[in-house]
């Protein structure tokens, strides 16, 4: 695993404009960074990332099954009890999932260690499935990269195939389904991610509509509506379950049949309570870090460094690093009232001057590719940079 500098494509910003990739630069700082790329061997990809991702995904599904059947465990996930049935029903009905992203610390040598599972609203999807694919294609065609370079990235192919499958499942429930897509107002990044999925859905032959999360309405009977007053029966929402369940329309959920992507049971996986549950069920697994619930502080020894994470933290908010009982680094944010967990610290590897995090994608239970992000801080936050990668050798 190497970080290799490369010349940027002369026209990439113009291309980004044409393809509608509007968030390559955010808040005046580079987000998409093609001044360098990461190179992996096929063995690193297949043995160290692809196989462990599929294993961990299965372990996660095992945890969901266990937690859903046990109220004492459900309690630990910080989700409102009035919605436990709604969550459990989606699991029992095998409501199909589209995708998720596991975040790993991986240095090319030692086993990849799981940081967390972005199972509900993973982003950096467009950059991975489409944009870094195009980067490789063009660099190979223009002779800057060797023709034997490959990429671990079947994301787009698998997304389209999975959407086609989910369409078939939906059509057995109702004829002529429209898939609504929703994200919040004010985020170019989220709108871009959802637009990409709308394009993938169109490729899969699905009729789509868009509505902003804030514009979703309800009728007298409690059915959800879009801004054209059309009834929503099938929706992809780039909006966290733990928010929806606690908002005023949350009480309408489950009253009328609506299929969600991601399904409600994903709220157990995008939750940091997953981490101590995994460690409890699969102790000493080479790809897991020791993790404990907030009330298991006796396990949090002062010989190790620990990371304290709120159950619902997003993009590195409200995370602190605890060394010999003292907080040494702390990030800001609005989370933490719901409880927290401790995870043994495992520093991200450093390449040049950057801390590097690997995101490993899953679609339909299969590993589907990786994304590489770099940050100047050891806690990856939303302003980290995205770098492309290749497989060679």
């Amino acid at each position: 695993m190497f970080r290799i500098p490369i010349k940027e494509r002369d026209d990439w910003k113009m291309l980004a404009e044409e393809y509608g990739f509007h968030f390559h630069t955010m808040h005046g700082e580079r987000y998409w960074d093609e001044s360098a790329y990461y190179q992996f061997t096929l063995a690193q990809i297949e043995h160290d990332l692809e196989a462990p991702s599929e294993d961990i995904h299965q372990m996660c599904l095992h945890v969901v099954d266990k937690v859903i059947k046990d109220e004492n465990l459900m309690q630990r996930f910080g989700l409102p009890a009035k919605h436990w049935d709604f969550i459990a029903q989606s699991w029992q009905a095998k409501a199909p999932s589209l995708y998720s992203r596991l975040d790993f610390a991986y240095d090319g040598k030692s086993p990849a260690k799981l940081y967390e599972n972005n199972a509900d609203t993973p982003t950096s999807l467009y950059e991975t499935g489409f944009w870094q694919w195009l980067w490789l294609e063009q660099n190979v065609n223009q002779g800057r990269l060797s023709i034997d370079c490959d990429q671990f990235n079947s994301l787009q192919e698998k997304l389209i195939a999975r959407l086609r499958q989910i369409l078939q499942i939906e059509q057995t429930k109702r004829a002529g389904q429209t898939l609504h897509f929703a994200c919040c107002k004010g985020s170019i990044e989220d709108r871009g991610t959802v637009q990409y999925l709308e394009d993938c859905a169109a490729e899969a032959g699905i009729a789509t509509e868009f509505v902003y999360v804030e514009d979703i309405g309800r009728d007298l009977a409690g059915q959800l509506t879009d801004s054209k007053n059309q009834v929503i029966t099938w929706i992809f929402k780039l909006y966290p379950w733990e928010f929806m369940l606690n908002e005023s329309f949350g009480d309408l959920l489950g009253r009328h049949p609506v299929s969600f992507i991601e399904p409600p049971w994903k709220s157990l996986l995008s939750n940091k309570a997953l981490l101590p549950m995994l460690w409890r069920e699969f102790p000493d697994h080479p790809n897991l870090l020791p993790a404990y619930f907030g009330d298991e502080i006796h396990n949090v020894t002062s010989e190790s460094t620990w990371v304290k994470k709120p159950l619902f933290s997003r993009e590195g908010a409200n995370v602190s690093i605890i060394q010999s009982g003292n907080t040494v680094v702390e990030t800001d944010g609005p989370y933490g009232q719901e409880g927290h967990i401790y995870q043994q610290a495992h520093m991200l590897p450093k390449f040049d001057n950057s801390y590097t995090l690997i995101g490993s994608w899953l679609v339909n239970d299969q590993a589907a590719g990786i994304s590489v992000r770099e940050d100047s801080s050891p806690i990856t936050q939303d302003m980290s940079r995205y770098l492309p990668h290749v497989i060679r050798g």
Partner: protein
Amino acid sequence: MKRTKKINTSRFLKRSNLRRAPLVLFAGAFIYSTFFNEEEVTYVENVDDCMADTSLSQQDCEMAYKNALAESEKTAPKFDTQARCEQDFREDGCYESDNGTFIPMMSGFMIGSALNRYDRNRYYHPAYSYLSSYGTQKVMSDGTPLNRAGGSRYTVPRGTTETSKPRSTSTISRGGFGQIASRNASYSSSRSSWGG
């Protein structure tokens, strides 16, 4: 190969670049509509028009008409009051539907121009006369306009006659989702995503 084999990049293109794609001049509605992702339909007001303007038989036209009426009940925009409905559609252009809401009368319906007989896998969407700020315009139940292509022929987005429109209802309130995001947004000025 560990990556996606082929990508239909044109699907993901948001703006065409004329320097890359030299403008080709051509004639013919078919090529025109294919190029712009559209399909052609015949708009008819009733069964008689349908028999005159399409190659469908009387029986086929009656089935298409019934199909359109049923679609209209399901998918037409719904309003709480007749007055509110008539603001968007013409006076006396709305009626009370079964569930007590008011919906516009359909002004006609559409038949895919490529069809020469009734196909039950197709949709015969109703159309309405919408009072826009530019004058009366023919629209589908979700507001998609019909663009005139000559005579009774119109263009609509490709795939229209193959897909249904969602069932519509009358919305009584909005904003019940997104509340926590707007509360949390004030914590960080660099906040760019609710994903992760």
